[in-house]
């Protein structure tokens, strides 16, 4: 097989892996949008906040250390212990659930019945707040997240595929971390589906997503379901934050991946979990292939910044509700 074609295949494979990462973030959006109609812009910042908290707990940092030192003139930074990864993840999950509860209690409870744009703006406010809070609590320096996840290229895949091409082809380069992320994503999606199909609260969640009024009338507590949904979104954010954080360090740019999840959502439809995954894969492959075939050679590179949006835009012109979105029916 010609080397160019094999490189193309490698690009596609890496695109698929990147797409899984996008889909992870998009999943959180879909969960909340389905259940409450809130377009949660803060999903990316929630991922950042979760990752920051995880690193902070693992390294035994004192929360708000800078602030405390500045006000009281003390010099505290660390508690002096290190928390094992699994316990730290559990603790972070507790923090995310507390966050979900307070978001519902202090913010969205007061905004029931407002227009979607107002809810959207509120989540942008929330994004600013969380970003500042994360920096205040744990400091704004770039942190490395070390959970012992495998890093680097996978030798096994490289060796196994080296025979496909000629002498100058050394096999496909695929990051082990991406493979782990894919596995985690598959497990996450399967357990989410199992949760919403087979458990009581999962069914209640789907009922709320279908029709608020009807769900209320059969005795489902909207308040509880929304806290549940925000907690689930927090869990998804934690997973996404861990994966992205392990890949590129825990820093502010992590919150920008939320923006990359938006075209994924448009492509897949705001209300469809399979849509988020398929959309993520299409965007991941599409932008890598475009950069490889057209962007880098002819347009000066860095086309990944906008290609996803343009793709989604073109796509939506022909199918306004996205791939799997509910058909838009308009009545006067």
């Amino acid at each position, binding site marked *: 097989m010609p080397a160019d074609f094999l490189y193309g295949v490698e690009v596609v494979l890496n695109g698929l892996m990147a797409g899984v990462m996008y889909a992870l973030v998009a999943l959180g959006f879909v969960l909340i949008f389905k259940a409450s109609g809130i*377009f949660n812009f803060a999903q990316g910042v929630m991922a950042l906040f979760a990752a920051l908290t995880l690193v902070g707990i693992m390294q035994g940092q004192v929360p708000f250390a*800078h*602030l405390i030192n*500045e006000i009281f003139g003390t010099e505290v930074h660390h508690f002096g212990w290190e928390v094992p990864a699994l316990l730290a993840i559990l603790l972070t999950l507790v923090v995310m659930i507390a966050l979900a509860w307070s978001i519902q209690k202090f*913010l969205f409870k*007061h*905004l029931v019945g*407002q*227009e*979607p*744009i*107002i809810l*959207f*703006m*509120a989540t*942008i*406010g*929330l*994004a*600013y*707040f*969380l*970003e*500042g*809070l994360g*920096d*205040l609590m744990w400091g*704004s320096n770039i942190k490395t997240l070390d959970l012992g996840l495998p890093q680097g290229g996978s030798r096994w895949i490289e060796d196994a595929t080296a025979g496909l091409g000629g002498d100058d082809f050394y096999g496909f380069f695929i990051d082990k971390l991406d493979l782990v992320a894919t596995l985690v994503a598959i497990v996450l999606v399967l357990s989410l589906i199992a949760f919403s199909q087979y458990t009581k609260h999962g069914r209640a969640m789907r009922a709320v997503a279908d029709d608020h009024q009807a769900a209320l009338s059969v005795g489902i507590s909207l308040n509880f379901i929304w806290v549940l949904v925000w907690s689930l979104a927090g869990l998804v954010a934690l997973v996404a934050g861990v994966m992205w954080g392990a890949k590129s360090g825990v820093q502010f740019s992590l919150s920008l991946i939320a*923006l990359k999840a*938006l*075209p994924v*959502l*448009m492509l897949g439809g*705001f209300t469809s979990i399979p849509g988020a995954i398929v959309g993520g894969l299409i965007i991941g492959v599409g932008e890598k292939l475009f950069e490889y075939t057209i962007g880098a050679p002819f*347009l*000066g*590179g*860095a*086309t990944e*910044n*906008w290609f996803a*949006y*343009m793709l*989604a*835009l073109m796509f*939506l*012109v022909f199918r*306004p509700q*996205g791939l799997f979105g509910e058909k*838009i029916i*308009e*009545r*006067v």
Partner: protein
Amino acid sequence: MFYREAGDFKTSYEADNQTFPIAFDRYRYWFVLAVAFLVIPFVINDYWANALLVPFLIYAIAAIGLNILTGYCGQVSLGTGGFMAVGAYACYKLMTAFPDINILFHILLAGGITAIVGAAFGLPSLRIKGFYLAVATLAAQFFLVWMFNKVPWFYNNSASGQISAPERTVFNVPVTGPNTEAWAMYLVCLVFVTLSAIIARNMTRGSMGRKWMAIRDMDIAAEIIGVNPLRAKLSAFAISSFFVGISGALFFAVYLGAVEVGEVFGITKSFLVLFMIIIGGLGTIFGAFAGAAFLVCLPVVLKLIGVDLFGWPPDLVAHFQLVIVGLLIMFFLIKEPHGFAQLWRVAKEKLRLWPFPY
């Protein structure tokens, strides 16, 4: 006591149709204009101009522009930063290509060019609605910023990739470049703001504005009663982009002087202007001013309190600023989702009955 409609009789259609039907409102309007044009230019200094007044005026134009699109026509746009960049780069290209022509025409032309670009990016709005459209406008934001970074023609092949404004004069007074004085900067922006506000206000009162509002409230119903959605939406995109383009041109040429596109016209700018119109009040011209004033003043005030009063390090204050801005936005949305404009309306209702409310 003074704020009364009673006894304020109109004897002609012109008087009945005027922008401010209540006499007290008119006096206030002329008073504000008089102070802005005749007093402030003589007392202004560099700090006030650079930190508060000039950014306020420029953001007010951008907010008026976005308010036409989002507040009046109901199309949420997250591409404001990109359109401001179009205005800035169009102005730069015109300034360097035709140095003899007055800068004011360049700024207007830059607005016109932005209007064309905005209308082009508005085309998908005929098919895509709501949040799908908001995300679609992000395509404009990222594509435009990328284009201005990558195509050397736009920044005249300068080595740094920046654009910087050469000195241009109006009536022999420099208004761009390093020798600009504070009052000249202020006056140029003020003239554009005043004209923009008057034009926007009258447009939204006229048939065009009514069409926009019909589309906003329900586009299918509007179509049935004979509003052409293609024309209404595209005109909203074009006119909104015109104002946004002017503000981008002023932001670059008059205020900053040198611009690196990713930094200045990034996605955060789009959100900032959107915040302004939401906090100020969607669908009001007053709201655009109030929101711009609030969000321009807030960081300055917080910095004064944090750094100068408490002596905290700037990075800590910057983090606090994020938290406070976030909290304030959420607080405002809970307390008054219709923004400052609604507060103002309520205050006027109260004033009408003061001091004898029933």
